[in-house]
């Protein structure tokens, strides 16, 4: 196994911490549209997109999954772990694939991440509840996920341009 550079460990630690704080901040914001559960900004994705561009896809996967587990343990809801995991995994897969094509900017990458996060959660809900009724939320979440994704992508884009990370 290749040893990780100290600097990289430090940067990744910072990124996990940032993702966790952003998750916490977001959890304190009351939902804008309470009638449709799942609409959210996805602030933590700023850290994930940043790491995806600065360090690479393996590091982004590490950051994202660590965040899910730590946030769930610290101030999340253990009953929702599967939803968070499915959302995170699907979102990561989509973002990594889209970035690999080299055809899109971090905005589209973040949009796909946001929409797939919602789609993953709905998929888990449909499986666990054995119902397709929850699919009705999908179009609404696709729209909200797109809007949130654009905002997050713009923010992440600024950070990617301005912050220098040498590892």
């Amino acid at each position: 196994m290749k040893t990780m550079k100290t600097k990289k460990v430090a940067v990744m630690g910072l990124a996990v911490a940032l993702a966790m704080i952003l998750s916490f901040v977001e959890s304190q914001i009351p939902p804008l549209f309470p009638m449709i559960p799942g609409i959210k900004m996805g602030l933590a994705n700023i850290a994930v997109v940043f790491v995806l561009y600065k360090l690479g896809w393996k590091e982004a996967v590490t950051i994202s999954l660590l965040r899910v587990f730590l946030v769930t343990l610290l101030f999340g809801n253990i009953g929702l772990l599967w939803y968070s995991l499915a959302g995170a995994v699907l979102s990561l897969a989509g973002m990594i694939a889209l970035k690999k094509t080299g055809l899109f900017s971090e905005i589209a990458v973040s949009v796909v991440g946001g929409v797939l996060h919602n789609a993953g959660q709905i998929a888990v809900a449909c499986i666990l509840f054995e119902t397709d009724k929850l699919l009705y939320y999908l179009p609404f979440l696709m729209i909200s996920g797109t809007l949130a994704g654009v905002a997050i992508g713009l923010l992440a884009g600024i950070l990617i341009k301005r912050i220098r990370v040498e590892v």
Partner: protein
Amino acid sequence: MKEADNKKKRLLDLMLIGGVLILAAVLLLVFVLNRRGEANPSGGACAVVRIDGEEAARYPMSKNGNFPLNGGTNTLVIENGYAWMTDSECPDKICEHMGKIHMNGQLIVCLPNGVIVTVEGGEDSGVDIFG
């Protein structure tokens, strides 16, 4: 793969975002059309409670009352033809904020406790599928 230049990326970004939004609109249209085609059985509307996918209970919307669900993790209130959730044990209380439902297909979901409440056999909501 070769990186596209920034201008081209912006254009492809916009196309992708547009594509996602169009897909959302199409799905919405399909759901609305499906909903309209559904038969509306006569007889009073019911609040149907499903726990982990299994139908657990059915309460007529015409009868007022408080009903503990799922061994008391949530309480369903029915009053004057509207149903809503109170007293969820979970920390998020998302289901309590989902509002009052009364039209066909509207739902209240409590993910952590695995509870879904839907209205069946009620009034159709017309265009907006969430009423």
